[in-house]
């Protein structure tokens, strides 16, 4: 049997950081990732933060990947952060840039597929020096302990023996379930996130969002766009795409189920968002069905090729970097020449093939995943025997205000876990006492754990301060206390004080309610909002079309098994599964696993595993 020092299970941002840190410390580690390549299974919103906490130290992305700021393919540094309250076509906006900047060195928008691949490159190069590395397309099925040996079984490879394990296998951690290290998260402890990626050329984003080439903006949405659920919408600018999504409490969704894609569609239909995502889209004309088959095919192929060429050239034209590259490589004499070629192509498209150009938006990927709410579900004991749990697997997502932090927390956890494992390797001691408990202490010291336990007065003040100008008499008296808190200085500091005495457990049911997420924002927008107009109605793809765009590597056996087909929970999954994998038969709810995007929404009442290596969903953006 082959032997390695450390195994890391899961190649998301947390697992990769563990590999990088272990290699920095000169230790041998192998990382197993079930996706066919790194990034294939990872999705996020997402804004990756680098933090500067008032107390203590976080291990930030640029501490682990020293060249992050120069070389990493992050999207844009977020410089504007705005909350929009919505009511039908009215929008009331509040600038929360101060909340975004709070305790942060920077926050940049990211796409996990690209970013994790870059992380993997850095980590793998380092790991290879010590005989380790990354193994993709391999799904860890079981771990056994035999006469002091720890043996990992996978679906694909021969068994291997290791000394310690870092479980970074995400929110639906099979490692946690099969070892019994923790229970599955319950719906009250997780959010369901749904997202679409919209394509929009680089420089059009700059103009549309009034940002510089190296700037980015984040928009958050609350009010009637939430369809009465606790949570909200987001829209982040990437380099040449937008991330638009909805994040809601799963128990709030279970109470009055809405199809996840309806929640995204509602955002898309909001006139303000429709205008933000719009673009110029070529529409093919019908091919003459009476023409000979070969001719029909020739035209179809020619049109496809032309649209592809046009779209690629257009992307380059609207990207400063690409324009410069094309001119430098001598493909074009000047940027104007590219522009001229683009319009001549466009003319040809319409004259030769009758292609029309319409205003619409271009959606390229639909995705979903559950997110753990660390305030409610972080593992108290993040270890089991010689396994340490990090990131989403340990339930450590942070939701404070509209900010979601999971990527950065996972990286910080991973460094601490790697440090603990390196220390254990030095002493050849992998007992819970020497390894697990030590890791637990390191995690307790993390400023993130502090954030998960204690409300930050200064941070809360920023929110209350941001709305202090709102005239309080305009909001119904039934929300009187909240409004008064918002507007009166004394009450504000009183509220913050009380908040900490009450603690999160008691305070959450008061803050996280339909009132704060839906009703107050809706009233604000109704009374104070600006009316918005959309110049077109977006053609929103059906869920079938969205699934058809995704890349799957279908497995013939289902990775999920329904346990109680007649339970209320399973019935609700018919609505809540983001890709409609469930439907009703005579005997109860059954699953058709082929379209599953492994979000984990249905995990509570199913036998839930990730698909075997390389199988299942294969995201292109993430």
């Amino acid at each position: 049997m082959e032997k390695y020092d450390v195994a890391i299970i899961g190649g998301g941002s947390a697992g990769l950081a563990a590999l990088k840190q272990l290699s920095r410390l000169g230790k041998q580690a192998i990382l197993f990732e079930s996706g066919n390549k790194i990034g294939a299974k990872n999705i996020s919103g997402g804004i990756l933060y680098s933090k500067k906490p008032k107390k203590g130290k976080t291990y930030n992305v640029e501490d682990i990947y020293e060249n992050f700021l120069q070389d990493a393919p992050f999207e844009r540094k977020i410089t504007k952060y705005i909350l929009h309250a919505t009511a039908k076509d009215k929008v009331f906006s509040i600038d929360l840039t101060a909340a975004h900047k709070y305790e942060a060195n920077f926050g940049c928008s990211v796409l996990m597929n690209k970013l994790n691949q870059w992380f993997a490159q850095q980590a793998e190069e380092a790991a290879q020096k010590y005989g380790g590395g990354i193994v993709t397309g391999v799904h860890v099925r079981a771990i056994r302990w035999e006469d002091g040996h720890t043996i990992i079984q996978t679906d694909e490879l021969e068994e291997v023996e290791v000394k310690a394990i870092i479980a970074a296998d995400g929110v639906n951690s099979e490692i946690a379930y099969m070892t019994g290290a923790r229970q599955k998260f319950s719906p009250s402890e997780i959010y369901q996130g749904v997202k679409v990626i919209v394509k929009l050329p680089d420089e059009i984003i700059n103009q549309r969002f009034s940002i510089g080439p190296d700037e980015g903006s984040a928009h958050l949405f609350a009010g009637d766009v939430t369809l009465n659920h606790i949570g909200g919408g987001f829209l982040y600018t990437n380099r040449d795409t937008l991330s638009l999504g909805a994040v809601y409490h799963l128990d709030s969704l279970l109470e009055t189920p809405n199809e996840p894609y309806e929640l995204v569609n509602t955002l898309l239909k909001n006139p303000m968002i429709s205008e933000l995502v719009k673009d110029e889209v070529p529409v093919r004309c019908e091919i003459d069905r009476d023409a000979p088959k070969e001719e029909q095919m020739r035209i179809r192929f020619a049109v496809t090729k032309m649209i592809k060429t046009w779209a690629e050239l257009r992307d380059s034209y609207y990207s400063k970097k690409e324009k410069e590259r094309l001119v430098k490589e001598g493909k074009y004499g000047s940027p104007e020449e590219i522009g001229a070629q683009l319009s001549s192509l466009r003319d040809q498209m319409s004259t030769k093939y009758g292609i029309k150009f319409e205003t619409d938006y271009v959606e390229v990927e639909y995705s979903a995943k559950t997110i753990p709410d660390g305030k409610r579900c972080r593992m108290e004991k993040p270890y089991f025997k010689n396994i340490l749990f990090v990131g989403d697997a340990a339930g450590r997502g942070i939701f404070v205000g509209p900010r979601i932090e999971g990527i950065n927390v996972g990286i910080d956890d991973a460094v601490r876990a790697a440090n603990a494992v390196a220390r254990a390797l030095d002493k050849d001691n992998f007992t819970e006492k020497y390894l697990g408990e030590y890791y637990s202490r390191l995690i307790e010291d993390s400023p993130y754990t502090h954030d998960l336990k204690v409300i930050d007065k200064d941070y809360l003040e920023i929110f209350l301060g941001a709305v202090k100008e709102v005239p309080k008499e305009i909001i119904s008296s039934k929300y009187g206390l909240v409004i008064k808190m918002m507007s009166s200085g004394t009450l504000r500091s009183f509220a913050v004080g009380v908040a900490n005495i009450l603690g999160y457990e008691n305070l959450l049911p008061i803050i996280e309610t339909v009132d704060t997420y839906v009703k107050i924002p809706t009233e604000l927008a109704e009374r104070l909002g600006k009316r918005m107009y959309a110049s077109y109605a977006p053609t929103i793809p059906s869920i079938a079309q969205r699934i058809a765009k995704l890349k799957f590597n279908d497995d013939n056996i289902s990775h999920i098994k329904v346990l109680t087909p007649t339970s209320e929970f399973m019935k609700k999954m018919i609505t809540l599964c983001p890709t409609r994998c469930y439907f009703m038969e005579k005997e109860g709810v059954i699953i058709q696993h082929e379209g599953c995007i492994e979000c984990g929404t249905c995990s509570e009442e199913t036998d839930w595993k990730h698909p075997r290596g390389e199988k299942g969903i294969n995201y292109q953006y993430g």
Partner: protein
Amino acid sequence: MTLKNQMDPINTAVIVKLEPDFSEGNVSYNPDGTLNRAETKNILGPHSAIAVSAAFYAKVKYGAKIAIGTMGPPMAESILQQAQLMSNADELYLYSDRIFAGADTLATAEVLKAGIQKMQKKIDIVFSGHRASDGETGQTGPQTAWKLGMTFLGHVIDYEINLESRTVRAKRLVRIQGVYDVVEEVESPLPVFIAIDPSYKPKFNTVSQRLDYEKYQKEAVKRAQDFKQYLKVFNAAQIEADPKFIGISGSPTIVYKVERIPKGKATRQAKVIDGSNKEQIREVVTRLLQALSTMAIK
């Protein structure tokens, strides 16, 4: 230390072919329905790519060396680069000469034979694709094997090498009496010529193989960036090909005209059945059973 590091290395060669990219968005047709070669991108043919992956398997598992060769115009060097990217090939050979033009499969095989014999190392295994997608008949491989005097193994779906006895054990997908998917296992001493089946997929079963795989892939990216450093271009004289057997004069066949196969009248009698009707389903099963019983192998 594993065996692969102690024994004499296995030297492999792969013969590949430049083909038009037939995927939608890349291919162009002329108004008369023929391929517009100038407008269509050229790629490493899909069958060639599978042959390259078979050689890569030998590299990962047995530490084999890989040389890749193709006959084609100067621009065919780009597919050698593609092949190197896939396999971390150690040497690349382009056989390019005006007088090769118009070669049929036999004349192509002559060039490939001469080319393989000119490779730096004595080759233990030659891999070729099953056939090309652009109008070739799957003869180049066997003909090259014959000219090289190598044992020919076609339709190979899996193979292992015994480094000590220097033999190959291969699984071949064969068709017996009209029934597909019969797997035949054969053993042969090196050298052999393997034409790889389209269904071939290399399997790497241990962590160390997978790590080697990744390591070579990474190295391949670097090598492919500087692929010219690994490339040798040879003309007819340099590979000492006999002018009698190459190019148009060495080709006993020429492609005179390619015609679409006229659509024949359908001879089957299709019947639409209603899937919810049990009677009809039963009838389908009965018919299937009848059909199967007449096909049984005796």
